[in-house]
């Protein structure tokens, strides 16, 4: 059957002809999800570097590599969606400062080159020099290239690396805010759409980004440690869970503020939005995002993490606590993905006439389909494995040259 006819049968009420089929599909859902993970992972790394949270040291390098792997993939959903990747360079050649979307290229380039690559470079420089001097292995050639020919690892030189890294992280925090705040800004500034048009959206996006980034790093850290058959640092896990709880509380409060404000303001769109929430988005918003993705993890983390009381409100053995942390982190990932879905897809399900609802018919194949989106979600994991192989982030890989 013609897809349009199939959708038309599920349209309820009055929908303008150009709103029946959604223009922004699954790829635009995973784009904010991925950039959120970048910003979140980076903010976690900055907790170590700038705010000296020593317990989180084991996740520092892994967070940076994760941020890099996801950042490289971040623009790909957009390029696949627009369909002309060969034209993408034009936004750099003819920059248009009046277009928020066009400025993304510069925000992205700034974040990639000036913040992330530089911070990783300064942090790994000593190790790169030592690894490049290994007598065997093909990797030493890559490492030699990455040193950019600077082999000075004197104490004074390493001291400069440390302060430069710290300085870049300080610049990096507002940059990470800019990167993901920008994504929220794009949605928040669509003034014709009452579901998106809110000044709170960039901030809500930012905090949900931090939540998703910390949850992801909790999973990656545990997975990385278990796969290497090493002992899990429970102090680190507890600290991650603690920050995850704090970020989740902030995120949830902001989302509730947005929700209550909309209800209280009760603009003319409130009827169609309440139909949307209680109907088309009930599963993804109420069940997945609010209940499973937020309330359950809040409850678990609040009870067992040391966020509210040293040792947790309920004292559980390490293994069980770890298991519950993982469960919460997985639920949070599902919840944050649902958040992106509810914003992007939800915002297009109701008509601008405020009198009708349409449906989203997901494709399986094709550039905008489920398989393409799944590939884009798997790609950062592959990149991360390559990055980990090239630049091992684990403590035992760190070199301790004499005199340093």
């Amino acid at each position: 059957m013609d897809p349009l006819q199939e959708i038309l049968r599920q349209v309820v009420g009055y929908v303008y002809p150009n709103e029946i089929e959604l223009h922004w599909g699954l790829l635009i859902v995973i784009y904010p999800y991925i950039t959120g993970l970048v910003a979140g992972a980076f903010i976690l790394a900055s907790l170590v570097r700038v705010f000296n949270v020593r317990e989180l040291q084991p996740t520092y390098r892994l967070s940076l590599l994760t941020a890099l792997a996801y950042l490289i993939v971040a623009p790909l959903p957009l390029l696949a969606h627009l369909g002309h990747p060969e034209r993408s360079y034009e936004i750099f050649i003819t920059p248009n400062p009046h277009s928020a979307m066009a400025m993304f290229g510069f925000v992205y380039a700034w974040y990639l080159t000036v913040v992330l690559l530089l911070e990783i470079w300064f942090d790994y420089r000593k190790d790169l020099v030592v690894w490049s001097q290994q007598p065997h292995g093909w990797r030493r050639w890559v490492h030699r290239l990455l040193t950019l020919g600077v082999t000075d690892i004197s104490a004074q030189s390493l001291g400069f690396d440390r302060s430069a890294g710290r300085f870049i992280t300080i610049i990096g925090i507002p940059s990470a805010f800019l990167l993901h705040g920008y994504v929220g800004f794009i949605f928040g500034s669509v003034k014709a759409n009452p579901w998106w048009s809110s000044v709170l959206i960039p901030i809500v996006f930012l905090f949900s980004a931090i939540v998703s980034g910390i949850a992801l790093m909790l999973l990656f850290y545990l997975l990385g440690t278990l796969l290497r058959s090493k002992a899990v640092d429970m102090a680190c896990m507890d600290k991650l869970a603690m920050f995850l709880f704090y970020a989740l509380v902030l995120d949830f409060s902001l989302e509730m503020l947005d929700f209550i404000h909309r209800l209280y303001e009760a603009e003319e769109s409130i009827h169609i939005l309440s139909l949307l929430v209680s109907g088309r988005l009930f599963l993804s918003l109420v069940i997945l995002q609010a209940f499973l993705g937020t309330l359950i993890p809040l409850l678990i983390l609040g009870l067992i993490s040391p966020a509210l009381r040293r040792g947790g409100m309920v004292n559980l053995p390490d293994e069980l606590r770890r298991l519950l942390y993982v469960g919460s982190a997985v639920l949070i990932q599902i919840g944050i993905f649902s958040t992106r879905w509810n914003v992007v897809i939800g915002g297009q399900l109701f008509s601008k006439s405020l009198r009708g609802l349409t449906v989203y018919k997901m494709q399986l194949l094709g550039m905008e389909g489920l398989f393409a989106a799944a590939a884009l979600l798997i790609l950062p994991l592959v990149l991360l494995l390559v990055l980990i192989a090239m630049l091992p982030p684990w403590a035992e890989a760190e070199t301790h040259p004499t005199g340093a």
Partner: protein
Amino acid sequence: MPPQLTRLLIVFAVLASGLVAARHFLLPKTFGESGHYRTAAVEAITKQPVRYAGREACALCHPDIVEIHRKGNHQTVACEVCHGPAAAHVESPSDHQLPAPRERGYCPLCHGYDPSRPTGFPQIEPVAHNPLKPCISCHNPHEPRPPHVPEDCRACHGQIARMKAVSPHVQLACTRCHETPERHKTAPREARPDKPRTREFCGACHAQGASSPKEIPRIDLATHGGRFLCWQCHYPHQPELN
């Protein structure tokens, strides 16, 4: 300066000069001279051949038809919408004859039923409306008028009629709620139908004590809905069931 900083500055300088060089070669020559576009594009567009003549050109040779058209309901539809681009015809009328659409497929482009069109816009169901007959055998496209007065409301208010046909109000004639002057059929915008003006009008069937069949939903007029008229909250052409 620490050696690593020097090396980084060199790398960034190479990247920046690469960008500047790329911009030099890739930027279209006239880009940005008069705005965020290629100025030469305007010239390229103006060089394209002119294909349309405009209705003033038509009036020079066909004043009688233009005069009729100017007063009719199609006054905002330019001649070339139906007859196609006319510049070549104006240059040499006998060499370039303009087509006039006579087949049935053309008029329904605007007048075929589509729920997104405004109510009252003349719309027909091409399959059911005088099948096989060309539109122009009954309607003069230069001065389109229905050949006779519409027989019922559906002729113009198809969307509402379709909605009402599947609603609990299907049994109610339109005129039960809308007092409609006879002249509305010939001058729809000058003589408009009425709408119910009191809550008691709906109350005749829906009030607690109304003498209507008991399946009809009841409300207490004294407490329900405050000072609002019923149709300000309930859409009478498709009233909700609960």
